[in-house]
């Protein structure tokens, strides 16, 4: 079937026999490569022993499933309330500091879940600065007399994840409020709805699809998280996959849990897709006019600012300041260790290589869909971006299974032919990890390239072709130069996401290669607090770059 489809796309003139077809073949390969991990998981899970499965189904899965669902519900609730509330606050009211708050509310995006957990474990330690301050104010002098509830709990995990993930809801909901609400709010007020009634009667129902999209993105991040839940003692499915694999060395069992996890992912993605479709419907009556915020009195304004600053404080300022202080202390006494500098090099090297791969392949897929429009190329494009919803552990597992087999084959061949052992060539060289990054972040590059291309009228492509350029030439002369800003932004996003990535890195990095993220994980897991603060600070600083980008786009 595929060959007939290729033949139908095949141009028959000598001038471009390769150009159009080449893009299609590349797109097909990318889509297949992204599907490999899922296929491998299914294969491995089916091949696993039933005895182990029974053990998993009886003792591991139910608890992990329940914990995961509680975590997702909790995080969903927190991000919904905090994200929607803060979006409404900065859209509907005018108060001193509102413009700063508008972008400051994005800052927690820079803090990965495992870093906020790491920071708060120390910040809220019974002997740490926060509890010490409270005791000093209340006049107690021993943790025995007064202590806060332990952060290492489900509630603690929900709160911490919620306060770094709410910006997903904030971004989508705020965009909806700004583009949609103005006219409708005016209409509603003329129909007699009070200012305060507008939020519940107009804004909230209107923003429902946007909220659902934001929440589903936050839930995907929660599912992906491995550090926070581990440090805070919540045994989620991700943790179960990890321990079943690493501690019990049971690959098949891990694959089985991973598949169970994919079911949840499918449900979350379904919510997202459904919501996006409805959002399109809502956006049909697009109005460019912006919402006019209501000026608040002085006192109310200060209260609004204080209220709006709470999520920024919890999700960004407190952990960032803590990390900065700890990192400074460490650097003052010990300097920067060569080990940490080496890890920084590893991190940057892996992230750069992955960014290059992802950008090239993502752009290829997006251009294929543009140059050869049709349902088949659209499908290939969608397939190649599926990885964005898959948790890092699942991707890592799906990548490891086929690549380990391949490594074994290469090794045997090399020994037979040249008498040399190549060892684990793909995993040892980091190629496996870059593959996993590519699967996970392809959607960012392909999506950005698609949006970038969409801004170029197709008449430009057709003009270039009528002036003698083939599919290839049109890409390099027109589409690439005109979408450069979008591709640069995509590169930045992918790069930083690779730097921050923990679960796949943890599982697929070459032996004895540490990155900033895995260093931090190792120290936090051991309970030692040495150079991790420096590593964490570096990751947060890198994470600020895309936030700045996002804030600039938002202002335009």
């Amino acid at each position, binding site marked *: 079937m595929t060959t007939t489809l290729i033949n139908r796309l095949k*141009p028959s003139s000598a001038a471009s026999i390769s150009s159009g077809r080449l893009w299609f073949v590349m797109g097909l390969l990318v889509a297949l490569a992204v599907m490999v991990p899922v296929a491998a998981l299914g294969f491995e899970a089916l091949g696993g022993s039933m005895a182990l499965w029974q053990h998993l189904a009886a003792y591991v899965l139910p608890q992990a499933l329940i914990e995961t669902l509680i975590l997702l519900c909790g995080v969903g609730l927190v991000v919904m309330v905090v994200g929607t509330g803060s979006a409404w606050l900065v859209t509907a009211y005018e108060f001193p500091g509102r413009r700063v708050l508008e972008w400051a509310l994005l800052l927690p995006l820079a803090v990965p879940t495992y870093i906020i957990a790491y920071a708060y474990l120390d910040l809220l330690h019974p002997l740490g600065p926060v509890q010490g301050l409270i005791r000093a104010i209340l006049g107690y002098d021993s943790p025995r007399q007064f202590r806060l509830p332990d952060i290492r709990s489900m509630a603690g995990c929900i709160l911490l994840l919620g306060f770094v993930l709410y910006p997903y809801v904030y971004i989508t909901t705020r965009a909806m409020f700004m583009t949609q609400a103005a006219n409708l709010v005016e209409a509603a007020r003329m129909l007699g709805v009070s200012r305060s009634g507008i939020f519940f009667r107009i804004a909230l129902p209107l923003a429902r699809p946007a909220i659902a999209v934001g929440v589903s993105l936050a839930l995907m991040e929660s599912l992906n998280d491995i550090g926070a839940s581990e440090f805070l003692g919540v045994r989620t499915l991700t943790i179960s996959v990890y321990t079943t694999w690493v501690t019990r060395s049971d690959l098949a069992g891990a694959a089985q849990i991973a598949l169970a996890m994919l079911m949840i992912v499918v449900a979350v993605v379904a919510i997202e897709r459904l919501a996006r479709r409805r959002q399109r419907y809502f956006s049909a009556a697009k109005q460019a006019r912006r919402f006019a915020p209501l000026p608040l009195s002085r006192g109310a304004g200060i209260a609004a600012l204080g209220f709006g600053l709470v999520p920024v404080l919890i999700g960004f300022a407190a952990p960032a300041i803590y990390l900065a202080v700890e990192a400074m202390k460490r650097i003052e006494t010990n300097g920067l260790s060569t080990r940490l500098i080496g890890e920084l090099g590893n991190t940057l090297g892996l992230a750069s290589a992955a960014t290059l791969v992802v950008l090239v392949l993502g752009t290829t897929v997006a251009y294929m869909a543009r140059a050869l429009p049709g349902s088949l190329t659209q499908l290939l494009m969608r397939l190649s971006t599926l990885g964005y919803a898959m948790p890092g552990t699942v991707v890592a597992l799906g990548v490891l299974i086929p690549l380990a087999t391949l490594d074994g084959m290469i090794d045997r061949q090399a020994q037979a032919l040249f008498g040399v052992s190549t060892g684990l060539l793909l995993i040892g060289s980091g190629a496996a990890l870059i593959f996993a990054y590519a699967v996970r972040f392809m959607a960012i590059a392909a999506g950005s390239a698609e949006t970038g291309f969409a801004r170029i009228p197709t008449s430009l492509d057709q003009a270039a072709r*009528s002036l003698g350029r083939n599919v290839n030439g049109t890409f390099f002369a027109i589409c690439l130069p005109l979408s450069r800003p979008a591709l640069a932004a995509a590169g930045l996003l992918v790069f930083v996401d690779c730097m921050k990535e923990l679960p796949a890195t943890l599982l697929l990095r070459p032996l004895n290669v540490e990155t900033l993220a895995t260093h931090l994980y190792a120290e936090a897991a051991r309970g030692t607090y040495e150079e991790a603060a420096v590593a964490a600070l570096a990751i947060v600083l890198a994470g600020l770059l895309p936030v700045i980008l996002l804030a600039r786009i938002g202002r335009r």
Partner: protein
Amino acid sequence: MARETEQMRAKALELQGVGKAFDGVAALEAVSLTLEKGQIACLLGQSGCGKSTLLRLIAGVERPDAGSIFLDGAQVVGPSRFVEPEARKIGFMFQDYALFPHLTVRENIAFGLKGLPRVEIEARVGEMMARIGIEVLADRHPHTLSGGEQQRVALARALAPKPVLLLMDEPFSNLDRGLREKLRHETLTHLRALETTTVMVTHDPEEALAVGDKVVLLRAGLVEQEGTAHALFDNPETLYAAEFLSPGTRVPGRVVKGAVETALGRFDAPQGMQEGQAAILFLRPHALSLAAADQPLAVFGKLVGRVFMGDRDSMTVAVDGLSEPLQFYMRGFPQFAQGDQVRISIDPAGALVYPA
């Protein structure tokens, strides 16, 4: 065999039974068309009639489901042949001009000349800019140009590679009325001077009649009528063609004793109409005028509307027995005001009769 090839060569463009469907809905059905070298053809029709699709099929940015296309005697589309757009040597002017925003005017015009020696490119670009009169714009970017300037640059870019055929998709529709006529005239002058075979798409009958050596009226994917501008306007073969090319009033009638009998009198029936068959008399404004008292073929009516339009007045006259009033234009006759009884004469040469 040799004679056949020669005949082919004389034709700049030939379409044979070209068809195209989108998602099972036919956009074009078995369209055939030939164009001599240097001729200008206008594809005319309502939006959705398939005229732009036909243009895109000729350009090669869309593939037909059936039929063949020959360019300069060589087949570019056929049952087992498809020449990619970049290999067809066709110039295309888009409705939005499609100037490359990241390139200057000079670079835009040079875009289609890639592969030539640099000196030749420079000479050709210079020559094109001089001919069209846009040398002063050479180093500007498209977004700094006015609509008219963009149109000129687009024309220069399309003509620079000396295409065998120029295709234009509503090239003047983005311009104001006054500028549109000026640029249309300018463009035509260049095309005639360069003897460029051209196919232009438009929805404006006035434009098609003014520009085309040949006008092709399309309706729902089929050629309704094809011919010179005069032939099309003077002898529209169908009521649809007549109504598309000019406004007018429909008057119902019936064939009685070899002529069509209507409330306005008897008119010659076209050949092939049966006795007793229902017919429609289509009266265009220019067939009607206010009559002197002694003229034959005149009817009485009541002037129900008179609107001053500057160079003429629009008259609306209700006639007993007609459901629709008659509409026409006159100059003078200040004595008639709304409500007055008037006599109208009908020029039988301008009266078109069609089967109902």
